[in-house]
Each structure stands twice: as C-alpha cells, then as structure tokens.
C-alpha cells in the first residue's frame, strides 16, 4: 500500500508505468486492436514498383517492404520483444546475480572456481556462443531468449561479484554471522536485497541491448524466425531503408527506446522506494 502510494507521487515513475502497461496491453491485446493480421502482405501495402508506403490514413505507421502494416507488426512484435527484453534479460540478470553472489560470498576454492568459470565465459565471444547454441537447438522464441540469457549473465556476475565481496566485509553481515545465521539466510535475506539496485540498473539498461541482440541473431539466421515480428528484427530487416523508408526504423526504434526508458523509470522509482534509507528524501 505504502509502495503504491509512494510510487504514485512520482510523475516520472507513473509515466514509465503507464508506458510499460500500454506496451503490455498492446502486446496482449494485439489481435483485438491491431488493424490487420500480423503477417498479412497487403496487396495495396506496396507501390506498384514494390516500395513500402509511408504513414497514411490506412496504414497509420506505414507499411514494410512486404506490404504489411507496421503498426500491426509493432503491436505483435511487442510480445516477442517483451519476452526477449524482460524475460531473457531478466533471466540473465538473475543468473548473473546468483553466480556473482555465490562466488563473492563463498570465496575459497568453490568461489574461485565459480569466478574462473565466469572469466572463461567472459573471454568467450558471446555472439559465437549465441550462434552455435541457437543453431544447435533450432531457433524458437524461447530458445533464443534462453540463449541470450546464457550469453548476457556474465557481466552482471562480474559486477555482482565485486559488490558482494564488499558487502561480505560489512559489519551487518559479520553481525549476522555472530548471531549464527546460516549461509542461505545471509545470502538471501541480507545480501540479495542490497544487490537489488544493481540488478534493477542492469535489468532495465539491458532491455534495449538484448532486444537489439535478438535482431542480430535473426540476421544470422539464429533468431526469432520470420514472419514472427520483433522490434529488433523489424529494424534489422529494413535498416538499410532508413533513407528511403525512415518510418521502418524510426517507429520500432522509438518503441524500444521508450520501453527501455520506461522500465528504467519504474526501476529507479522502485529502487528508491524499496530502499528504506531513501524514504522521504527527494
């Protein structure tokens, strides 16, 4: 209740939440609100020479190079991109948190081994790993999401590791140990909450990059398969058209930016609100 109240007092947070909800509703209700079917290549969606059509009354955001309605594709693409940006990136952050936290907390041989593993993963070219994994497990949305998670957790783990090392030295953790708290309790009840700001930052900043990474994978033939739209592959498919058909890049670009930004605004607000020391401050 208090959280809701605090949240509503922040205009930027409310704006962020509104956009996030809008995108979410758009994604869920796409079949109801979208003017056309997502992969319908409309006969009048291309000029006679085969060029896409700019925004107009019939196609509010224009059409793509196959004569499909861009607005419709953005609405349906929101599903894919939310799954990639939120679920895949979220999983990456979660794995990174887990590994980094464990490695930072355990220290000793186990912690060392974990960190060496992280180093190894970090030294491994991410894109290659993604390509191979996706090629091995025939690309589908969920596979792609998991592949991205597999690739992106490493940096989070590094940062979390460093932070955890710092936390473990803090007095309150020592106090906790002196009370006889078990490892699980210390890690999950006391260290984890302090890592939330980092998690939120990575969780939100990573949304845009993962959405674009998915597009790169599509381009290599290991991403989400056409005609399934995603914001990233809409941009990627038509990025060379950005002088002749700028709407094909601008609108999905805005969608990615706005969504990532809004998640960030919500995340920032949550971070402040959840951190009791920030309460009541500006």
């Amino acid at each position, binding site marked *: 209740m208090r959280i809701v109240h605090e949240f509503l007092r922040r205009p930027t947070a409310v704006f962020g939440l509104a956009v996030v909800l809008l995108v979410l509703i758009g994604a869920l209700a796409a079949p109801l609100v979208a003017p056309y079917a997502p992969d319908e290549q409309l006969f009048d969606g291309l000029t006679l020479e085969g060029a896409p059509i700019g925004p107009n009354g019939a196609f509010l955001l224009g059409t793509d190079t196959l004569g499909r309605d861009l607005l419709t594709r953005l609405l349906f693409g929101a599903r894919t991109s939310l799954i990639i940006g939120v679920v895949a990136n979220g999983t990456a952050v979660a794995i990174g948190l887990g590994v980094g936290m464990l490695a930072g907390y355990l220290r000793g041989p186990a912690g060392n081994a974990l960190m060496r593993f992280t180093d190894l993963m970090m030294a491994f070219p991410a894109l290659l790993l993604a390509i191979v994994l996706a090629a091995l497990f025939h690309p589908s949305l969920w596979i792609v999401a998991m592949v991205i998670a597999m690739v992106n957790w490493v940096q989070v783990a590094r940062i979390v590791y460093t932070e955890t090392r710092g936390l473990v030295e803090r007095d309150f953790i020592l106090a906790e140990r002196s009370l006889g708290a078990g490892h699980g309790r210390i890690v999950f009840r006391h260290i984890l909450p302090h890592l939330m700001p980092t998690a939120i930052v990575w969780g939100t900043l990573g949304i845009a990059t993962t959405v674009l990474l998915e597009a790169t994978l599509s381009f290599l033939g290991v991403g989400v398969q056409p005609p399934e739209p995603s914001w990233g592959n809409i*941009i990627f498919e038509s990025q060379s058209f950005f002088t002749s058909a700028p709407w094909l890049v601008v609108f999905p670009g805005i969608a990615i930016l706005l969504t990532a930004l809004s998640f*960030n605004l919500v995340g920032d607000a949550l971070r402040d609100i959840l951190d009791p020391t920030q309460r009541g401050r500006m």
Partner: protein
Amino acid sequence: MIELILRRLGGALMILFGVAAITFVLLYALPADPAVQLAGRSATAQTVANIRHELGLDQPLIVQFVHYLGNLVQGDLGRSYTQKTEVMTLILARLPATLILMVSGILVEVAIGLTLGTIAALSRGGAVDRLVMTASFVGVSAPQFVVALLLLYVFAATLQWFPMSGFGTVSHVVLPALTLGVLGAGWYARMVRSAMIDVLNQDYIRTARAKGVAERTVVLRHAVPNALLPIVAMIGIDIGQFMGGVVVVEAVYGWPGIGQLAWQAIQQVDIPIIMGVTLISSLAIVVGNLIADLVAPLIDPRIRAR
C-alpha cells in the same frame, strides 16, 4: 607485481585452453559441413570426401583437437579453409586496423561518457541530468547500423568533412570511432555519473573546496581521477569486445578490422579462422583485464599497497 602478472598469465593460458576446447566442440557440433560448403554446387561426392579428408575433418574430434593444440603451441593457427592462407597472416593483417579502431573508439567513448557522466553528476536530479541520462538510453538502444550510416551521410557524404570509407589516415578513423563512441558512451555516462556522485560526497572534495580550489579544478583534478576506477574495469571489458570485432561499424566504413573477417568466417564455417579470432579475442579480454588490473594502481595508489 611480477608475481601478479605471472599468475594472471597462467590463468590466461588456462582460460585460452578452455575457450579453445569449448569452441572446438561447439563448432564440431554445428550441422554445417565446411567441406560441402567448400566443394560448391558442382562438386561430386568424391570431391567432397577428398576435401574432407584433406582438411582432416574425417578424423575423430579428439584427434583433431590434439592436432590443433599441437600446432597452436608452435604459434600456428592453421590455414583458412576458404582462403588457404595462414590464419595468423590474416589476423595480423587486420590487427592494426582493429587496434586503431579499438583505441580510438574507447577514447571517444570514454571522453563522451566521462564528460556527460560528470555533467550529469554535477547537476544531479536536475534537467541536465535527466537529459543526459535519457540520451544515454538513446545511445544504448540505437541500432549500430543506422547510427553509422547516419553519421556517414551527414559528415562524409553531405558535408564531406571526412572520407566515406577506407583506412590509413587520421581522418579515416574519425567517423568509425565517433560511431562507437556515441553507441558506447551511454554505459560509461551512467557509470561515471554514479561514481562521481559517490566521489563528490567524499570528505576530500569538501577539503579541496575549503582550500579555495576553483570548482572546475575540484571536479577535474580531485573528483574525476577518483571516479576513474570503475571506468578502467569497463575499458578492460571493452578491449575484449572490440578485439572480437565491431562488425557493423567496420562494414559501414569499410574498415579492415577483424570483425569483418570473423563475420565472413562464421558465414562460411571457416573453422580455423573462427578458432583464431575466438582465441585472439579471448586473449584480448584476458589481457584487457590484466591491463585494467595493472593500470588501476596507477590511478589509485591505495591499490598499490595491497
């Protein structure tokens, strides 16, 4: 210090071995057959079999790997399947371009990130801060290809300040470096901002002000050097990523870097090149981190004591 370097190099070797092994297994698991690819459409089954035999692809994985490692120890990365040239030659030919782009890209990235991050930190919570933080998001979410082309259209094609493509003079590197800088600066700006906010709250900043030091000097001489540490770690990571190649930027500006080599090799399943580039970029990541670790004490003398 020497011990640190030795130990890290030992670790690096382990990591390289691990990377080589994993890459090898993964590439082996790929369904694409390089021999079929090489033989082309008109080849007979006999030709394909011959090529596979000549490349040693008909041997068990472990034999191939041991063979590869044996050559690797002698500094031999093998020959490209498609080009028949030594992978080492191919990589070395592209290394200077990659290094130049890496260094200049990082410089621009850090310069922009540092400036914007500092400005944001100084006007924390204000309009400028919001603007910079939003801008950092734009940088992070912008598609590379579009940014690269946009800069090329504006500064090379229209204004003709810089050449559109190629490699050689300083003016060639400006646009590619700028593109990388614009794209990467967002992360740096965010990091610098939070580090600077931290630093600006430190007692020694108050001390400097109490001495009558001008605000500019306070920020530049007292605050910024203290906020550099996380940046150095980040640069360490970036070195590795840039070494693996920045495919899109290289492509748009016709930059003869490793990225284009890697990209083509992946498309053509040219395993020796993929292996070579992978190892080089892993090495770069390890070295990058090592450099970051070695530079850190120069920036922060407290670390020297440890």
